[in-house]
C-alpha cells in the first residue's frame, strides 16, 4: 500500500490560491483566461463577494507546476486583482466541499 495518504498526496501535488479582486462581470474571465491559454487546468474554483460586495475573493485549486510562480505574477498584473496569496492544498476552504461533488 502507498504510504502517503490521499490528503498528503494532494498537499504535495496541489496548491490553493486566494485572490482578492474587484467584483464586476469579467474579472473571473480575466483570471481563468491566464490559466487556460497556457493549458494549465484549474481543478477547483470558489468565489463569493466580500464585505460590502465591492470586492470578491476567488479561491483556486490548481496542480503544482513549475509555472505556478509565473502564473501568480501574471495574475497579480491584472488591473482588477488586488492581492494574491498562495496556500498549501490542505487549506480548509476546499475541504468540506466533498459532499457536493459525489458522482
Amino acid at each position, binding site marked *: 500500500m502507498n504510504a502517503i495518504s490521499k490528503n498528503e498526496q494532494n498537499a504535495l501535488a496541489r496548491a490553493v490560491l486566494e485572490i482578492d479582486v474587484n467584483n464586476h*462581470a*469579467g474579472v473571473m474571465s480575466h483570471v481563468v*483566461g491566464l490559466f487556460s*491559454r497556457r493549458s494549465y487546468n484549474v481543478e477547483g474554483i470558489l468565489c463569493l463577494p466580500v464585505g460590502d460586495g465591492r470586492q470578491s475573493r476567488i479561491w483556486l485549486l490548481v496542480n503544482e507546476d513549475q509555472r505556478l*510562480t*509565473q502564473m501568480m*505574477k*501574471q495574475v497579480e*498584473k491584472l488591473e482588477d486583482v488586488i492581492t494574491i496569496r498562495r496556500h498549501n492544498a490542505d487549506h480548509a476552504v476546499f475541504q468540506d466541499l466533498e459532499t457536493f461533488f459525489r458522482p
Partner: protein
Amino acid sequence: MTETLTGAQITVRLLERQGIRTVAGIPGGAILPIYDALGQSTTIHHVLARHEQGAGFMAQGMARATGQPAVCLASSGPGATNLLTAIAVAKLDSIPLVAITGQVPKAMIGTDAFQEVDTYGLSIPITKHNFLVSSAEELLEVIPRAFRIAASGRPGPVLIDIPKDVQAQAIEISEWPDPGRAEPAPAANSALIEQAAAMINAAERPILYLGGGVIHSGASVAAIELAEKASLPTVMTLMALGAMPVDHPLALGMLGMHAARYTNLALDECDLLIAIGARFDDRATGKVAAFCPQAKIIHIDIDPAELDKIKTAHIGIMADISEALGQLLPAVFQNSRKNWVDRSNALKAEFPFDLHSTDNPRSHFGLIQSVAACLDDDAIIATDVGQHQMWVAQAYPLRRPRQWLTSGGLGTMGFGVPAAIGAALAERGRTVVCFTGDGSIMMNIQELVTAAEENANIKIVLMDNATLGLVHQQQTLFYGERLFASQFRSSPDFIKIAQGFGIAAVDLDASANPCATLMEAISRPGPCLIHASIDAEQKVYPMVPPGAANRDMIGA
C-alpha cells in the same frame, strides 16, 4: 457650470482633454453617436482608414513615433474583430493604444443582434485591460483610467467597448476628471542597485543587452552613458534598435536569429549579461540553455513578471529603466576594460557583417544603403514583416530612439504602410520611409488611398521578389527545397496600383540611374511608392536555425 451632454459627447470631450488631436477609425452603426459628436469637434482630426486593422496600425504608428497613447475607433462586430490583430501587435510590443469600439445597445447584448460580437471577451487576452461601459457616468472614470493604464508601467493597449445606448444617454456634467497620465514608476530597490553595480564593477566580460523598454522609458541617453562609463559592449533587440547609434564604437548591433556573427559570438563569451528592458524573446536568445552560457545575469524591467520568466536572474530589479539607470550610473566605476573591448573589436574584425554589394542599388543591401544616403537621422523608418524587415534591421544606420517602427513580437505583415501613415501624421516635419515587401504590402494595400487622402509624407520602398521571402527561405533551407505556396504565380502591377490609389510611383527597375530616381522620389513631398525588384534567391544571413543555439549560425 453644468452641461447636459450625451455619452458620445462626453467621450469626445474626454479625448480632447487628453490632448488627442488625431484619431484613426471607420464608422459603423453602433458607433455613429460618437462619430456624430466627433464631427463637431474642432480640435480632433479624424483619419478615415479603409480597414479597421489599418486604423489600429495608424494609431500605433502615432504612439510609436511619439511615445504618447494614441486612439483608434471601430464599430461593433466586424469593425471590432478587424481591429483585434492591431491590438495584439500593440500588446506584444508594449505600445500605449486606446481602442474605442461601438457595441450594440445594452438590452440587445447577448441576443446575437446584428453586428454583435463579444468584443470584451475577444479582447481580454490581447489587451492590458479592457472595459465594457454600462453608463454615461462611467465614461468619466473609464476613459481617463484607460489612458492611465495604457501609459503606466509597461505600456500596452486598452479597449473601451461602449454600447450605443450609453453613447446616446444624456447626463448632467458639472465637473471634469483630470486627464489620465502615466503613474510615477516605483523606485528601484537601492540595495539591489548597489549589488548590480558591484557585479558590473567585478565583471571582466560584461555585455549590455538593451530591449524595447529602454525606448519606452526614454532611457537611451542613460544607457549609452552606462555603456561608455563602464566600457560595456552593447547589443540591442529588434525593438531597441536606435537606442544606441549603430556606429557607436561599443555597439554590437542586433542580437539573435539574424545577428551578425560577432554579436552572438561575443554574447557566447560574456561573463555578465546586463539585460535592461528586454524580455529574453526566443528570436533573441535562440536555444535558451545555450544563451550566454558563462554569464551571470542582471535583469532590470518595469514588469515584475518578466523577471525570471525565461532566464533566472542573479539580480532581478523591478524598476523603471530611467530611474534605475539614474541610480546605477554613479555606483558604477569608470573602467576602460581594455582586454574585453579589444576582444569584442577583434570578433568584429574576424567575423564581420557582410554587407555585400552595397554599392549596387539594385541589390537588397545596396537599396537600403541608397535610401539611407538620401535621409538624415530625423527620418522615421517603418517596416513591414519579412526578409526586408530583417535586412533593414541589419543594414540601416539607425541612430535615435523612436526612429524605428516595426512589428516585433507579433511579426505582423501589413503593419508597415498604415503605421508609417500614422507616424507621418503625428510627426509632420519628418519624412517617413516604409520598407515593405510584395507579400506584406498586399495585406493592407487599401491604405494607400488613405495616404493619398491625408497627403501623408511617406515613401514606400517596395522590395519585390514575388515571393513570401522568409517562407521561401525556410522551405529552401529546412524543408528540402520543397517550395510550396511561397512563390506568387501572379503579381500585380504595383506602379499602376499606386497610381490608381492616387499616389506617385516610380520604378527603379526602369530607371537608368536608380540613385538619382530614389533621391528625387524621396525629396518630393507627399506619398510615393518606390518599386524595386530584388533577387528571390537572396537569404537573410546569418541565420540561427529554429531551435538552435545562437552560436550555431548558418550562411554568410
